């Protein structure tokens, strides 16, 4: 069966520090991959999506970036975190147009 792993579960970082969040999927090949952010009291904001290795599309311009160095690995990064980067980050995968997205357990990021 397919599984998705996201880590770390929680992270506290100072303003201006770098960030790296990792997401891996097991049990499927060539998935579509997604990074979402969920700010307190708000819905899901799609940040990045990827349809293949090194194929990344950005939905919202900001100081975050994403990379997909391997088929089932998706990384969210930042060189310098801002206070506004705080939130709950979710990774998700899907296999096709009419298939639901499957979500990881999320990373709670707090910026101090």
């Amino acid at each position, binding site marked *: 069966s397919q599984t998705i792993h996201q880590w770390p579960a929680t992270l506290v970082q100072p303003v201006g520090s770098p960030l790296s969040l990792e997401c891996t999927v097991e049990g499927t090949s060539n998935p579509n991959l997604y990074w979402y952010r969920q700010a307190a009291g708000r819905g*899901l904001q799609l940040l990045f999506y990827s349809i293949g290795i090194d194929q990344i599309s950005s939905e919202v311009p900001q100081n975050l970036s994403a990379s997909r160095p391997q088929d089932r690995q998706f990384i969210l990064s930042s060189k310098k975190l801002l206070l506004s980067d705080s939130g709950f980050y979710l990774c998700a995968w899907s296999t096709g147009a009419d298939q639901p*997205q499957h979500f990881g357990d999320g990373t709670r990021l707090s910026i101090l």
Partner: protein
Amino acid sequence: AQSVTQLDSQVPVFEEAPVELRCNYSSSVSVYLFWYVQYPNQGLQLLLKYLSGSTLVKGINGFEAEFNKSQTSFHLRKPSVHISDTAEYFCAVFPRGYNFNKFYFGSGTKLNVKP
């Protein structure tokens, strides 16, 4: 362009009472429709989906939803809620005909079940 509206940001309800969470969407093409549930500090779990066929869709945990094309709605219902149903619920649409699986999510409805 696509958009999803969940008019109710919070819905309080007593245990064993029925509940309806509303979802309306706007799309220039036909869509697939989904409901997800999110428990505190967790990811989203799929409750149910509508792809085609019967407009009444049954999902997990006793939830069901009805697709109404003329009203562009996909409301979620449960005849009798439990304390454990307390969570946030998200409606999502996927526009058909796209070659990429990009979902549009509503802003969520927090269901608070009281004893």
